[in-house]
């Protein structure tokens, strides 16, 4: 008799779900909202004046646990500097087939040159296409990030311009004194962002 009660209990659960809304969405046409700090494809940022932020220090490559970043730095040309510093990254490649999207490169970057976007659909038909070069990663001079396949009917062009959440974190130095203080430059597609609510406010 206990078994029959259990069966009826189970039938009631599945039966009640029959009348509930599905939790899944029709994926290529509909998206679930992504969290603000979603780790998607990387982007190489520029300053508002068009200068590249990357200084070719290779700290991102050093921090990368998957060893998927390859950077070569060189001195800026004196008459036509690429970045405001002494050096710039003239080769920047990320192997997306190895990347684990941990964003340690973003944390390691001293100039916020590399950040992450919300784009996650990066399937390709060859391994070579999985390696993103500087041309593909770098944002345009106007601050927008070009999409790899903008004519695709399902492409969400806003994804690449949705800035990384990490740079929006409160108290970037870890000190409570910096809570609510904007400590970063504007990133792709967004000149400046309001700080996220601080942990102290949230817990109050």
């Amino acid at each position, binding site marked *: 008799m206990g078994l029959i009660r259990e069966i009826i209990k*189970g039938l009631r659960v599945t039966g009640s779900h029959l009348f509930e809304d599905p939790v899944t*969405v029709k994926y290529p046409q509909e998206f679930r909202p992504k969290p603000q700090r979603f780790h998607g494809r990387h982007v190489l940022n520029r300053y508002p004046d068009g200068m590249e932020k990357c200084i070719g220090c290779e700290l991102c490559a050093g921090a990368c646990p998957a060893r998927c970043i390859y950077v070569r730095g060189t001195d800026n040309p004196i008459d036509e500097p690429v970045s405001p510093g002494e050096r710039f990254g003239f080769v920047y490649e990320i192997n997306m087939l190895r990347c684990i999207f941990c964003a340690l490169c973003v944390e390691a970057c001293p100039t916020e040159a590399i950040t992450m976007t919300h784009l996650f659909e990066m399937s390709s038909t060859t391994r070579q296409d999985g390696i993103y070069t500087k041309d593909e990663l770098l944002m345009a001079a106007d601050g927008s990030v070009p999409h790899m396949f903008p004519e695709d009917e399902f492409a969400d062009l806003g994804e690449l311009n949705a800035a990384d959440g990490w740079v929006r974190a409160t108290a970037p130095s870890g000190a409570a004194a910096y809570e609510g203080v904007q400590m970063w430059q504007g990133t792709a597609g967004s000149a400046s962002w309001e700080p996220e609510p601080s942990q102290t406010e949230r817990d109050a």
Partner: protein
Amino acid sequence: MELADILIVLGRVLAVFVLLMVLTLLNVWLERKVVAWMQSRIGPDRAGPFGILQTLADGLKLFFKEGITPQKAELGMYILAPFLAAIPAFLTFMVVPWGETVTIAGRQIPLQGAELNVGILFILAMSSMAVYAVVLAGWSSGSKYPLLGGVRATAQAISYEAALGLAMVSVVVFSSNQGDGVGTLSLSQIVERQAGTLSNTFPELPGFIGWLPNWNLFAQFGAFIVFFIAAVAETNRAPFDLVEAEQELVGGFHTEYSGIRFAMFFLAEYINIFSMSAIGATLFLGGWQGNTFDGRVWPWISAILPTIYFLLKSYLIVFLFFWLRATLPRLRYDQLMQLGWKRLIPGALVWLAITAVASGLYQFGLPGDA
């Protein structure tokens, strides 16, 4: 026999064939949809409106796929087995009446594949035939998982066939109360005896109970439970689907089949589900019986309503199949055997004895009373 009579018979057979094919297309889609909803998913929605053409697309795909034959296959049996599965599946449904007898141009046309006075025996025979397909498919594939699946299927079918038969016999015995004291094995007769309200069978019942429809379900609910469980096991459906347990046996007896041959097994499985539901509806839910609003609506509505009632009742049981599939985990082999031999068969026997004794007392009174 005139030409018209032959044509009518052919038409009836063709109608059943088309009905089953169309309903199978619908059922596969419906099952996927219902199970998806129960799991809070959307389910197939790409092919056609609401994905209703999904099965058609799958079927076309299977039709054009290569049929691979394993090297060690016993070729004759390997090719024969899918037909052995599909043909009995169609034949089972042939004796089920799916509508009231209609009169067209002065001819009485029963809406039934074949009017058979031993319909229930025929159904049991045909559902046993299906076991041959499974065991031969398993054996002739020349591979170990299909063989294991085939052996399991045989044991399962034999165990539950007995319970299924006993549950049906209870209905046959009970039908003697509704007729002239003689039971009937004809499905169309069983349906006709369930006409009207419950007070037709038991005039002594108080009005509010006697008002219920005259379905065998009310007096034979024990037989219905046994019948339903055995039917689920007989059609190898969850939770009794250890014959084709994907996790351990790959696909069971049809592991080595592909293309159109696999499609025939698939077709047979879904036809069997619908046939079993239709037989359940016929035996216990009054078949096509129902209010046809004679004289109050257009005649063609009155003519079509019995078929609609029949389909509705059948789909009620089909839905139960889907519901169980979405809910229950698979039984272990020893649990399956225990349920079959220690619970269902004794239960069905006791129920049959109760039915027989009660029917005897009801019709003839206590011994010595005369």
